[in-house]
C-alpha cells in the first residue's frame, strides 16, 4: 500500500492517538505513517460490541425473570468468563455456577457478596439491584 492510500477514517482510538502503520513511500521504500483509523476495523469492533450489548441485555432480562442471579449480568457487563470471575473472586468455577442461580445467590453472606462486588467494581447494593451509574 502506498502512503497516500493509507485509510484515514474515524476509529475508536482516534480521540486519543493516531496509529503507526507501514506503507511504501514515493521512492518505493517501506516507511511509517500515522493513520487516524480504518472504517473496516471500526465496523468489526462495532459488530463485536453490538454482540456484547445484546448479551448484557439478555442477561439483565434473565435476572429480572428470576432465571439467573445478578452475577450473570455483571459477568456479561464486565466481559468476564467463568475463569476470569474465578481468578478475581477466588471462588471455584463450580461455586460460581451455583451462585448464578437466584436461590443460592440470595443466601450468600455479606462477605461473599463483597467479593463479587469488588471483582465487578461495584458496591454490594449495586450488585444486588443491578443499578449501576457509570
Amino acid at each position, binding site marked *: 500500500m502506498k502512503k497516500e492510500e493509507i485509510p484515514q477514517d474515524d476509529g*475508536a*482510538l482516534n*480521540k*486519543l*492517538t*493516531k*496509529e*503507526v*502503520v*507501514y506503507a511504501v513511500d514515493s521512492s518505493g521504500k*517501506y516507511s*511509517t505513517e*500515522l493513520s487516524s483509523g480504518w472504517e473496516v476495523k471500526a465496523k468489526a*469492533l462495532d459488530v*463485536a*460490541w453490538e*454482540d456484547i450489548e445484546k*448479551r448484557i441485555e439478555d442477561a439483565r432480562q434473565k435476572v429480572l425473570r428470576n432465571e439467573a442471579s445478578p452475577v450473570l449480568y455483571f459477568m456479561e457487563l464486565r*466481559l*468476564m*468468563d467463568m*475463569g*476470569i470471575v474465578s*481468578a*478475581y473472586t477466588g471462588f471455584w468455577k463450580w461455586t460460581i455456577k451455583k451462585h448464578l442461580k437466584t436461590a443460592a445467590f440470595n443466601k450468600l453472606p455479606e462477605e461473599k457478596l463483597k467479593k463479587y462486588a469488588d471483582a465487578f467494581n461495584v458496591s454490594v447494593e449495586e450488585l444486588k439491584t443491578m443499578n449501576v451509574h457509570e
Partner: protein
Amino acid sequence: MCMNNEFKHLQAAHCENGVTTNLLRSAGAEQLTEPLSFGIGSGLFYVQLPFLKINNGPAIAFRTMPGLIFKRTCNALGIPVARKKFTSQEAGKRYLDECLDAGRAVGAQVGVYYLTYFPKEYRFHFNAHNMIVFGKEEDKYMISDPVMETVTSLTDYELQRVRFAKGAFAPRGQIYYPKEKRS
C-alpha cells in the same frame, strides 16, 4: 522523583516490537527498528483454537506468545535478559521502584481491561499488552506505551491493577529488561 532522562518514546504498530526495539536501542543495539525486532524475534505466527473460548469466540492469535519477541531478539543479539514474575503485588511494586530508582527503564506485561488511557471500545480482558515504565513522579508512573503517540502516566493504583490483571495469560506483574549493554 526518579526518571531516566535519556529516555525517548517510540511509537510502533505492535506493542512488544516497540518495547523490544526501544529497550534494546538503549542497550547498545542502536540500529534496531520495529520491523527488525519483529523479524529477528520471529513475531509472525498464527493459531486458531476453536475449543478454547476467549470473549465467547475461538482463540485466535496472529503474534507469538507474549514475551517471545523480546526473548528471541535478545538471544540473537547476545544480550542477556532479566525477567521477573511476582506472586505478591507488594513485591512486584517494590521491584519496579528499585529498577526506576536505579534509572532503569523496564518493559512490563499488562492487561488492557483496566488501562485507563485506552478507549472503552478497546478494553477487553486481553493480558498480553506491553509497555515501558521509565520513571516515577510522586504517585505517578511515567509510561511509554508503543500504541500511543506520546508518553502517558498511570497512578500507583492504576499500574498495579493492570500489572496484576487476571485471566488467560495473567501477567503476574511481569517485568523484563536487558541485563547489560551489548559489548
